[in-house]
């Protein structure tokens, strides 16, 4: 193949791939599922990767939504963000770190299974 043909091929390739790339990004934009699969809790002590789906699923730990999301009254309700009720000017809100520690470690302690040491959850 001579130089000109190679250049033409490259132009065509760049154009086609650009089109495919733009279409993939535009038409198949990734949407977060309604019920999260995994959640990354970012914090200064080392991020925690929480497997939401496994905790929820019947094949996994099978816990109900309201066990963690205390504002949920019926299964299937979407939980509200903490700050929707615990406003800065309202009564003293519990710290996020204490709540999450209490919920995770508390449940693991109670059930006698699951990680409770720092380095078992936090990527330190």
């Amino acid at each position, binding site marked *: 193949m001579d130089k000109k043909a190679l250049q033409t091929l490259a132009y065509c*390739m*760049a154009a086609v791939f650009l089109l495919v790339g733009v279409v*993939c*990004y535009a038409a198949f934009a990734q949407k977060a599922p309604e019920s999260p699969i*995994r959640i990354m809790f970012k914090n200064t002590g080392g*991020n925690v990767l929480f497997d939401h789906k496994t905790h929820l699923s019947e094949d996994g730990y099978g816990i109900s939504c309201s066990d963690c999301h205390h504002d949920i009254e019926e299964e299937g309700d979407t939980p509200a963000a903490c700050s929707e009720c615990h406003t800065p000017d309202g009564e003293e809100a519990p710290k996020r770190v204490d709540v999450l520690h209490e919920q995770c470690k508390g449940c693991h302690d109670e059930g006698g299974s699951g990680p409770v040491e720092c380095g078992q959850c936090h990527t330190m």
Partner: protein
Amino acid sequence: MDNRKLFVSSHAPYWHNGSSIASKSYNIMLAAIPAVLMGIYQYGAPALGVITFSISCAMIWELVMNLIMKRPISIGDGNAAVIGLMIGMLLPAATPWWVVLIGTFLAIVVGKQIFGGIGCNPLNPALVAIAMLFLSWKGIMDFNEALLNYELGFPMVYPLSTLKYFGVEAISEFSAGALLMGAQIGGIGSTFGLGLIIGGIYLILRGFIRWEIALSFLAGVFITALIFNAANPDVYAGPFFHLLTGYTLIGAFFLSTEDSSSPVNFIPMLIYGALAGFLTVLIRNIGAMVDGVVFAILMLNLANPLLDKIRPKALGKEMENA
């Protein structure tokens, strides 16, 4: 008197054997297809989007630089497309479009064109881009965080991250066979071990990459990991785990073998590959980062000019491996 003939040549006209940079580039892309297809099969359209957008952006940056620098148009040689493909293969499927755009800019403009274009880059352009993206946007290059919304039927945690933070016990859920078949999260085209090995063997057999670099890199990883593992198997993972996870295989066959940033002589090639493998495991086992391939190869890229001075080929002397 020494009667050996130092220069053996025939008269013109010569016949070109048909080899070219373009044929090399397209063969590298061909060799990468199994690994890329597996990534697209696993992650679907988003992975296809990252790969195709990365290739096209790299080619466009090359064209733009050609025009700005008033140099001959060089996208026909396919080198920019290969660099774009490599970046796409190293990125997670959920990479935003602007990261791909910046990454390809860093590779083509900062990593390659400002040094003078193909053959003049001291570092592997794709790795320059990935290193800068990693240092700038950690969350995007953290596979655990980037791929939160995918469920593919195998452990959806990055194996090297699990090893680093939760120890050898935690990696028991990864079997060597599953890792080889791509049952792990990571870069789009860097998780399907078997595909990368097949692509690598094809490139070695066709003479497009040097087996000395690829095999010495793998040997460096294997031996170093074996020594660590033998010293303390409770803390350090075995050599096969290191060979089949992270960027090891794509690093051995597609990244460390990049032409202008790797040595050309036999002994330097072996040292280059082995040291890069050694450094990879060192960074993984006792360094701060989860994977060490990117920085290990970049470090050895820097050492490349010095390494090539070890027993250089005398002018006119025939050498088997040079």
